[in-house]
């Protein structure tokens, strides 16, 4: 991975999103700058996940534009290298071990995937002792930790797009995520995340973006 020294800004301009026949939101203008975190909030079904998918470049907006450094995210070639998207689904395979699952994702995204790096990442999220356990034997919280171990592999400033990163985590797990977020922002990374509950006391400063204000 070789991202720019200064991370570009993710910009959503006059964004609208439709799901089926229903317009979820319109007129969304949002910027996520280097070193900043944005907490996306809103009622269930308002379109938080849809907005994250638009930001990741997985979906096409009904109208408006999502850009990275001024270029549409679906056309910005460098975007894939600096974007880390962790969705609601954990992207772990039931029949693989924790280490194998993490290794696959790290290889796929061009991150360090040697055994030492992977074990260090799992250590950060408290999953090192479960590295050889099949994913199907893990609890929901452990699965979330294993998924979030990807964040501990990051070394460069990047844009993290996280869908409910605190979901299913215990107090210790939330603390681990907050520490990873602090380190990430300190090295110039940016974060766009959703959470049903307000980020707790240990979370970094986050700009609040209420999606309910953009309901049609």
């Amino acid at each position, binding site marked *: 991975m070789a991202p720019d020294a200064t991370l570009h800004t993710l910009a959503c301009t006059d964004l609208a999103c439709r799901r089926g026949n229903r317009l979820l939101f319109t007129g969304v203008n949002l910027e996520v700058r280097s070193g900043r975190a944005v907490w996306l909030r809103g009622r269930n079904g308002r379109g938080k996940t849809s907005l994250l998918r638009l930001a990741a470049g997985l979906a096409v907006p009904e109208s408006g534009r999502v850009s990275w450094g001024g270029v549409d995210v679906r056309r910005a070639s460098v975007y*894939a290298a600096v974007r880390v998207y962790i*969705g*609601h689904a954990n*992207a772990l395979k039931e029949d693989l071990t924790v280490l194998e699952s993490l290794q696959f994702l790290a290889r*796929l995204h061009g991150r360090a995937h040697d055994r030492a790096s992977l074990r260090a990442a799992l250590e950060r999220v408290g999953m090192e002792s479960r590295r050889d356990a099949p994913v199907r034997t893990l609890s929901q919280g452990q699965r979330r930790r294993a998924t979030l171990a990807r964040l501990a592999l990051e070394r460069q400033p990047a844009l993290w797009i996280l869908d409910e990163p605190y979901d299913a985590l215990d107090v210790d797990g939330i603390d681990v995520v907050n520490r990873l977020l602090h380190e990430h922002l300190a090295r110039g990374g940016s974060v766009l995340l959703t959470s049903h509950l307000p980020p707790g006391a240990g979370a970094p400063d986050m700009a609040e973006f209420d999606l309910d204000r953009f309901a049609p």
Partner: protein
Amino acid sequence: MSAAFTAVYTRDLRLALRRRVEALLPVVFFIVAVSLFPVGVGPEPQTLRVIASGVVWVCALLASMLSVANLYAVDLLDGSLEQMLLSGHPPTLIASAKAAAHWTITGAPLVLAAPLIGLLLDMSPAALATLVAALLLGTPILSLLGGVGAALTLGLRSAGVLLILLILPLTIPALIFGSGAVGAVDSGISASGHFSLLGALLIFTALIAPLSTAMALRIALE
């Protein structure tokens, strides 16, 4: 780029090894289905020799379709597909790796089982060799086309039925030239024409199918 291909390919093989019973289902179906024909049609060697190549090809086609419905469905459900498409690697590369893994898990065992099945149907050594060569060229076509069908029906209800309706007609040329090659050898003429056409079909499918699969996957995720 090749690292992503290898990552997806080896992961799918590893997953198949962890679920051996599921992975072996197509080849078991193939063997059982072909074995039923001598019982149903009758054990006369002359009759079996005439229908052998067609029976083997139809059963190979159906066995291949058995496992293709889940090619992308599980990856979609667990979020792996999103990650693969966001990796920055061309989606055609991902589609190629998935099709290659499907052929290794499903197509290659069918090719390996074919000589045994051929003996059961009293095929001559020359016809057996032709059958294996034709399957070697034809089964990758089935995996590639299956990938297109699996991607087009991703997330739909009754995806399995739709997939068969969409893909089976497209496999007919492979079926015709594949079984025709064995028929030609049995008639004492060269099968090189059939092989050339099967080869051309394979090249054409290898060029078009990953592209179509990639586009269908993009649409399915949007």
